[in-house]
């Protein structure tokens, strides 16, 4: 089980996403997951080994490392990516449920005019309307919440997004205030800023997608309202025309039979 499997799960949702949703999936997997796996994990690979404190007191290094890094950056990013990707599974489950119900109705003989066979149902792209619209919108909403929450946790845990090259630590069993040195602080800062920027871009994409979906619904409703308003006038015109036609045909018949009008 690895990131490839998550990619397979989320990739299946891609077909039913909007264009902005497709861009979001691409950004997640290329600029975040790939960077995490091929680069960031190497940078943080020896983080505890190369964390050095200016003391020979056993245990001081462990305690200071634990105090300044309660959760490693890498693990927090991995958790963030997992939590941010999973709301998309709600959409996948909804689509799977919809397809199962359609297949059941097809087997009962109800939707034979809409689909040729069961394969046709599987290939059909499901439109984002009705209950699926609500599921999709909720998934985007949760994504935004998770992104914001993790960014805040990062800021809160590490006092910002910058890693210093030295930390002062005086926790027991350290005998006094000792200097502790982090390995590769500049490289770690660069990657932290990169991941945070990618996170911000993903959040903006999610907000844009949410606005797009809301506008689409409002536009569709106003269009439906307009056609309903036009339709009664059109029906009235048609019925008047029918009456006129009947009168004309009646008078025509009377003229041929010689019956006085």
């Amino acid at each position: 089980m690895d990131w490839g499997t998550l990619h397979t799960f989320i990739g299946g949702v891609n077909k039913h996403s909007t264009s902005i949703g497709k861009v979001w999936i691409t950004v997640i997997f290329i600029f975040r997951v790939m960077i995490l796996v091929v680069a960031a994990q190497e940078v943080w690979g020896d983080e505890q080994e190369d964390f050095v404190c200016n003391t020979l007191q056993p245990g001081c290094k462990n305690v200071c490392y634990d105090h300044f890094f309660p959760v490693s950056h890498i693990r927090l990013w991995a958790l963030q990516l997992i939590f941010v990707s999973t709301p998309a599974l709600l959409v996948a489950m909804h689509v799977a449920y919809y397809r199962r119900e359609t297949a059941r109705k097809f087997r009962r003989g109800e939707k034979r005019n809409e689909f040729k066979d069961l394969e046709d149902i599987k290939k059909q792209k499901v439109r984002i309307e009705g209950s699926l619209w609500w599921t999709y919108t909720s998934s985007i909403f949760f994504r935004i919440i998770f992104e914001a929450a993790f960014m805040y946790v990062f800021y809160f845990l590490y006092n910002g997004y910058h890693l210093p090259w030295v930390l002062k630590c005086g926790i027991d069993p350290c005998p006094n205030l000792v200097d502790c040195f982090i390995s590769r602080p500049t490289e770690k800062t660069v990657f932290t800023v990169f991941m945070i920027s990618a996170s911000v871009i993903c959040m903006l994409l999610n907000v844009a997608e949410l606005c797009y979906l809301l506008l689409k619904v409002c536009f569709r409703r106003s269009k439906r309202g307009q056609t309903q308003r036009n339709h009664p006038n059109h029906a009235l015109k048609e019925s008047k025309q029918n009456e006129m036609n009947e009168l004309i045909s009646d008078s025509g018949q009377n003229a041929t039979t010689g019956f006085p009008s």
Partner: protein
Amino acid sequence: MSWMFLRDLLSGVNKYSTGIGRIWLAVVFIFRLLVYMVAAEHVWKDEQKEFECNIRQPGCENVCFDYYFPVSQVRLWALQLIMVSTPSLLVVLHVAYCEGREKRHRKKLYISPGTMDGGLWYTYLISLIVKTGFEIGFLVLFYKLYDGFSVPYLVKCDLKPCPNTVDCFISKPTEKTIFILFLVSTSCLCVILNFIELSFLVLKCLIKCCLQKYPKSLKSSVCECHHLRYIECGETGVPPLLQNHHSDSAISTPQRGETKLLCDTHKS
């Protein structure tokens, strides 16, 4: 052989699961297996190398580490994942057995080997109970082995060959505690899902049984109704009971002779 093997095995279970079963599978794959592989495994990577005791006596660190961590938490987590996933394979085995039987006898023995009724229902129920048992068992084991779900930063150790009570420091205790709490919460979520699925299956079966009994009692009451109609038709015109009973055989007002015939056919 790796976790991919387990993933491929479990993917086959998806077809024969209920909706809640599929949610359970998604939770296990994403929040337990994936988190274990991409994050948790690395946290416990250097656990013995970074376990440090405040003593230079050779062997003291080894003995203390072995005493406080008889089985590493991460290995226990892996064992739990394997044990909890395997009862689902009973269902796959059952379906494969049914399909094998049909092939051997070269005729259709079952309506569909994958439908959830009869023997497969019992197999699914047993697999659910065993899964829940394993989950709760491992949680209790975790709690008893490590005295709770938190990892302390310091442990006191005075086992031989340590000359006195020494301080031993565990590496990354906060991160380990966070991941253990994550494991416990996902485990509890899976237990809750199993209980819901169990109740759903049992309720569905009870409702089906009640519905099967109810038409039988309806048939016998229709028969009695026709018998009553026969008697009433003999006395007056249209019997009042006809208006209340929903019978698909008796819609119109029958004559005396017809009523008797209907009753006889129902009885037979």
